[in-house]
């Protein structure tokens, strides 16, 4: 009804008819979209602005769960210790970043974009190009660091593109977007192991622990550890990365996987690496693991290390 009145007031003679037709075929919140049968149709270009916004929000606003995890880690470190000093600096830093809406860390990462596309939505146009345009706008106009280059010539692309885009098809007619800028201090310290089945749960725990220990201060602890168990080489790595998007500290649904998370976190914090490797009780804020079906001959394990700035932002289109 709003559109009918609005168009009518604009004085266009065909406005009312057009408005009634478009009202009947559009969802009320977006008059530009159409439907074909049960399919919702949107333009790829509609993803540009959400991606731009998400890149900036993720780089500048540390999510509340990450802030709370740092604050509770601070309480568990000894007063006057180097560990507590680091955590005080990190809490002050995220507040400075939030209030100025400027990046928490100068490594504004590679833009890793997760797009869960409903099977009842059809996107007209080039999705990857739209995602890259959103990234380009955020990193150039938003004064973020451009860290992406050719691996061999080492020539920078100048606008932080291309993004790393992971598409998944899900039920429904929405597009769910998540941007997780990934810094390479922690990405460099991540590992993939193709373990033999005989390694078992103890082998999984040992390799998680070795990875975090080797990462040391370089990965900017206290870290978040994403663990993928099973699948194939590449699906295991992606499974590990997806675990970094979970609410911090929320246990896995599967009890046996949650038990691995608890035991790994306990052993990691017993290492004493501490915030920025200067010693302390908290080396990891959380371990998030997930398991998926694998081959009879294998036990793939991916350990994706995330620094203390567990950055990501999501929105639905």
């Amino acid at each position: 009804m709003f559109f009918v009145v609005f168009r009518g007031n604009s004085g266009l003679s065909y406005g009312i008819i057009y408005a009634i037709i478009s009202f009947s075929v559009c969802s009320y919140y977006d008059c530009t979209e159409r439907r074909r049968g049960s399919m919702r149709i949107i333009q790829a270009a509609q993803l540009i602005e959400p991606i731009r916004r998400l890149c900036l929000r993720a780089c500048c606003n540390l999510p509340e769960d990450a802030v709370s995890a740092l604050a509770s880690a601070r309480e568990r470190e000894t007063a006057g210790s180097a560990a507590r000093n680091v955590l005080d600096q990190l809490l002050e830093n995220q507040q400075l970043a939030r209030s100025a809406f400027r990046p928490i860390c100068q490594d504004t990462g590679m833009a890793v974009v997760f797009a869960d596309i409903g099977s009842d939505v059809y996107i007209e146009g080039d999705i990857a190009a739209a995602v890259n345009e959103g990234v380009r706008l955020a990193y150039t106009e938003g004064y973020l660091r451009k860290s992406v280059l050719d691996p061999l010539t080492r020539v920078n692309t100048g606008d932080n593109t291309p993004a790393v885009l992971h598409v998944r098809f899900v039920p429904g007619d929405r597009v769910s977007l998540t941007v997780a800028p990934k810094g390479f201090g922690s990405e460099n310290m991540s590992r993939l192991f193709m373990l033999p089945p005989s390694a078992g749960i103890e082998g999984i725990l040992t390799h998680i622990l070795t990875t975090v220990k080797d990462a040391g201060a370089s990965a900017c602890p206290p870290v978040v550890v994403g663990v993928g168990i099973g699948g194939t080489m590449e699906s295991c790595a992606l499974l590990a990365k997806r675990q970094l998007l979970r609410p911090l500290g929320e246990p896995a649904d599967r009890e046996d996987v949650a038990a691995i998370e608890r035991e790994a976190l306990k052993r990691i914090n017993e290492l004493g690496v501490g915030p920025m490797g200067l010693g302390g009780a908290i080396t990891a804020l959380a371990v998030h693991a997930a398991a998926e079906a694998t081959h009879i001959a294998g036990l793939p394990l991916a350990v994706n290390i995330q620094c203390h700035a567990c950055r990501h932002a999501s929105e639905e289109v």
Partner: protein
Amino acid sequence: MEHHLNVPFQSTDLSLLRAGDVVYLTGTIYTARDAAHARFDRMLKAGETLPMPKGACIYYCGPCPAAPGEIIGSCGPTTSKRMDAYTPALIDYGIAQFIGKGARCPAVNDAMRGRAVHFAATGGAGMLYASRITACDLVAFPDLGAEAVYRLEVTDFPVVVTFDLLGTDVYARTTQN
């Protein structure tokens, strides 16, 4: 222990520092990371002079660009060990004060012992460090963007000594390095 010192450090100041000490720096430091170090290496092999004075303090950092009204964008440290391949030659040249994060390889620790000191800044505290910088000037390699060499004037810039002149390494307690 806590110190408030001018940077670049005088050798008398450096000899007082012990691994684990907190130091608030005031003075001049120079940014350089991977790509700048690769160029330093080529320049040293060609017998050329580096774009910062001997005795300078290097900060392993690639800042975010400054937004309008800012001196510099977010500017925390990057991982020191990626510069390991180039560091002994820099020490031989006369640059022996480094700020970064994380442990160095055994060869670099050997090269640093008695001659160089390594400090850690807090990784991921980029806005905190930006708030301690009063001037930023491009010195060399503008084509490298964030990886160019910038001269920074800093005030009360907080770092921790991780490797002192005696060869004590803070990270040796907790990491395999």
